[in-house]
């Protein structure tokens, strides 16, 4: 067991690094820098959100009334649970509990898929209600509320862009976890070499983190929640 670990570790050490330590630290730092770029990537959308929320507050309130706050809250909880299983999975990799790691990561994937499923239900709802920006956009409630439907459309544009980009990240995340599960099942990771597990974990938590902001910003704009 011990020798195979060393073999794996030596096999995993790329030629241009001096040690496994240097390699792991390098990979982790690289991942953090990548997450920095992700923050700025979403940052552009958050900036647009801030500007239009300030400009068209009433329309944003009206748009947010169509959100199903319970589905949103459930999804938040699902993601938090997935983050827990992910964190525990990485911990298993650190402590060399390979089977447990794979089990936990599969649960994480299932949570991720559950999130996407719930999101798909919401998307379907919005789609059938013509709450998708473009020529088919309709928002009959605007008249009664006294807001310009165009401005509600901007709310929905940002809603789709932000949650869509987030969902895309979730899809990528699920794929990455699947990759780690397969590689883990083939015994590639050990307490000496688990940087890929850790980095996919970082990515997963980051995607969770974005949702932590998206939920209040898009769903909880004002208290007059509809049914």
């Amino acid at each position, binding site marked *: 067991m011990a020798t195979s670990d060393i073999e794996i570790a030596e096999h995993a050490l790329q030629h241009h690094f001096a040690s496994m330590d240097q390699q792991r630290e390098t990979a982790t730092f690289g991942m953090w820098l990548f997450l920095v770029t992700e923050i700025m990537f979403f940052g552009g959308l958050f900036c647009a959100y801030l500007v239009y929320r300030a400009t068209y507050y009433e329309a944003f309130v009206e748009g947010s009334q169509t959100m199903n706050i319970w589905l949103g809250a459930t999804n938040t909880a699902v993601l938090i649970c997935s983050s827990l299983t992910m964190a525990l999975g990485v911990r298993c990799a650190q402590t060399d509990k390979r089977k447990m790691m794979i089990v936990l990561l599969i649960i994480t994937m299932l949570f991720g898929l559950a999130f996407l499923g719930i999101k798909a239900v919401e998307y379907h709802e919005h789609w059938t209600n013509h709450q998708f920006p473009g020529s088919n956009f309709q928002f009959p409630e605007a008249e009664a509320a*006294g807001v310009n439907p165009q401005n509600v459309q901007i709310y929905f544009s940002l809603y789709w862009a932000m949650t869509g980009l987030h969902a895309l990240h979730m899809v990528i995340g699920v794929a990455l976890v699947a990759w780690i599960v397969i590689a883990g099942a083939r015994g590639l990771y050990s307490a000496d070499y688990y940087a890929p597990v850790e980095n996919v974990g970082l990515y997963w938590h980051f995607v969770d983190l974005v949702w932590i902001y998206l939920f209040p910003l898009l769903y909880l704009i004002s208290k007059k929640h509809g049914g």
Partner: protein
Amino acid sequence: MWKNLPLFPEQASSLAAQVDGLYFFLVAVSAFFTLLIFVLVFVFAVKYRKSAHPKAEHIEGSLPLELTWTLIPLGITMIFFAWGALIYFQEARPPRGAMEVYAVGKQWMWKFEHETGQREINALHVPVNRDIKMIMSSQDVIHSFFVPAFRIKADVLPGRYTSTWFHPTKTGTYHLFCAEYCGTEHSGMIGEVVVMEPAAYQAWLANGGATGTMAANGKELFTQLGCATCHRLDTQGRGPNLMGLFGKSVQLEDGRTVRADENYIRESILNPQAKIVAGFKPIMPTFQGQVTEESLGALVSYVKSLSQPQQKAEGGAPQPAAANESN
């Protein structure tokens, strides 16, 4: 100045001399530093060439020198900043009582309308020695109103008003350019500003074939579109009384206060729900798509005329002494 190779634009507005003053100061300072660097590099390169100076001397650096060439440029740039900002503030604030011209940019022409109702395309006639304020918007993409001889430029945006002003000091004909790239015939979106003696300008106005002043046209539209049913000139309308509104601050339903400027009136016509006046209900329909940029200009001009004492007020009602009801 050479006829075929002019190297400097004409100064034809009150601001031109100020902008040029700062420009020359910048040129002088830049020339000084450029020469300083050129001369130093040249002298060092020759004096310390390998054949004359085979062994370099080891010099580490010098904190006092670093501070000198950090702080002195910093000080100089702060002068640039303050001077530039002063000019910009003047450019941003049209003087009271300026003659107003409404401009609409569209691919690829300039349309102007004088308060007195004259319309022209790609040419703008103005009297010399008057403050002229441009109130501008675009029908399509972003354009930019640029008169080099006046040293002014302002982007003309779709969906809102921007403004700039100038005070021509010399009669003549000057270039008017669109300075923001706007598509195929961007370089053809040019025109001229004709600065005339006041008498000549009056004569030009008389031949202009205007069909009523902008405010009068606006008043007509105001009635036609049914605005007058709610925005009555007494206290009992379902919409705020517009008499004396322009230039005042308005208390909104959500607690904010805004100043009633051209953009506020524009927004209130096109997107009435954006800012609801305190004490009123959001019942006004939008007029987006129903009024052209020109009609919008006329309506704005009319609402503004309701705040002007005596001669220009077309509403016919005596000017209210008290602040308007919506306050």
